[in-house]
């Protein structure tokens, strides 16, 4: 099978897995303990790291843009710029990549290991659907928690920008002016923009990582290869879809004032 055929086959199989997973969401209430366990793991794995990286990303964004704005006497707009950047782009993309690295890779490793060591076959022999048992809880957990994580990252990243804006003598914008500017520029549509991306990315991460795990064959080495494959695939999907979602939101005038 050549690369082109393989690409289309994989895409078709992932879409099929997505449809089957959505179908099995009907069993979500009955399997709520599994969903909650996955949500707790996502939070446990990502919250501390999300706080750490978002504060520095917000700070770096302020540091890059603040001095440039001061040249034109526009430094008081820095709050709106940092918040817009976090809410629409950096928050959802960065958080999703963090989730891929911490959670998505673990999903692939766990499911890939189960595939290699016949645990998935054992589920099938017990008439337990692997998509219902393994994929659906992870799908729902990621779908639900990623938007909350993005809001968490946006708040902390915006705060990081506020700190740098206040203490850096080349920017020198106090907290009060910074946050007044955030309130002036940011609308709910900007938040919605980021949440739509977060939801789509959450779906893609869980489906891509679970799909690669389920397709793993061989031994421990192939599990490692699958993890790498899942991470790279997820990163590509996030970045590609980020562009197309942004394009669509512009067309729909969500969060855009022109």
């Amino acid at each position, binding site marked *: 099978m050549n690369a082109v055929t393989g690409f289309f086959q994989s895409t078709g199989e992932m879409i099929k897995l997505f449809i089957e997973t959505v179908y099995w969401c009907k069993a979500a209430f009955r399997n709520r303990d599994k969903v909650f366990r996955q949500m707790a793991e996502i939070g446990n794995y990502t919250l501390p790291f999300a706080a750490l990286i978002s504060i520095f990303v917000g700070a770096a964004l302020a540091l890059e843009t603040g001095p440039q704005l001061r040249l034109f006497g526009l430094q008081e707009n820095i709050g709106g710029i940092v918040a817009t950047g976090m809410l629409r782009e950096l928050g959802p993309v960065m958080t999703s990549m963090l989730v891929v690295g911490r959670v998505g890779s673990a999903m692939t490793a766990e499911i890939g290991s189960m595939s290699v060591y*016949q645990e998935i*076959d*054992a589920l099938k*022999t017990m*008439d*337990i659907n692997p998509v219902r048992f393994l994929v659906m809880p992870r799908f729902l957990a990621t779908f639900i928690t990623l938007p909350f994580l993005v809001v968490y990252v946006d708040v902390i990243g915006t705060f990081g920008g506020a700190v740098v804006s206040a203490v850096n003598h080349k920017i020198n914008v106090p907290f009060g002016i910074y946050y007044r500017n955030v309130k002036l520029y940011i609308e709910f549509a900007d938040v919605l923009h980021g949440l739509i991306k977060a939801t789509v990315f959450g779906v893609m991460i869980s489906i891509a990582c679970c799909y690669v795990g389920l397709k793993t064959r061989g031994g421990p080495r192939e599990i490692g290869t699958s993890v790498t494959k899942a991470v790279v695939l997820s990163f590509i999907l996030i970045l590609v879809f980020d562009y197309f979602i942004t394009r669509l939101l512009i067309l729909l005038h969500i969060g855009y004032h022109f």
Partner: protein
Amino acid sequence: MNVQTEDILEREAEPSYRQNTPVEVRIIKLNKSFGSNHVLNDLDLEVKPGETLVVIGKSGQGKSVLLRHIIGLEEPDSGQIFINGMDVNDPEVRNRYRFAMVFQSSALFNSLTVGENVSLYLREHRVFKDENAIRRIVLNTLSIVGLEEKENAIPSELSGGMKKRVAIARALAMNPDLILFDEPTSELDPITAQTIDDVMLNLRKHVKVTQIIVTHDIDLALYIADRIAVLDEGRIVEIGTPEEIARSTNPLVREFIVRSAKENKKEVGTYENRG
């Protein structure tokens, strides 16, 4: 199942799980290839209800592939498999009968404890409303395999033989109509292998179920089988009782017996005089 488990099932289980019905398995002209490797070659086989049939053959002859077809993990290229006269691909088969498989690797779920592994089928299919009934079934099945004290252990804490016994307990907890064993004593030392042999012999005495066991271990086959089928180059070349197989003049069977006698430092005659 033992008397205690039957009692719990009778009083508390969903009606469809109370009775198990040992099934007849009929395989007709089964063919399967993987690339250019023709693994199963017009294979015919019949297993009677409640029978313990052992399929022996050299490595790579398709024994595990045969089991995977019966349990529905593989699709044949051609041929059919019937369970009590119903095509194995008919969804109604899964509604009426319960199949369990003990994998060569045990295939325990490493994120679950022993007790959770054994009870997984009961929980996922809501066989019991009462959690205590599930726990009693788990303890009863673990006691059949001699591991009741390991209920809260995780698989990584168990030896290979223990994992195999937990896998057997997990299969038993399903109250199955058909149990398949894939190389149950492979990768085990002789003493642990004998323990597994005894567990399986104990099953025959206490559990009404059809068993199909694939192995290259002629000693296991002669010890526990009602009948033995010899698989060579993708088809059954001989089938008979342990006594008939032990006295067989089939060159492959003779090779198995001679090699096993050598490995176990026995006389070939001890196999021929079994039973």
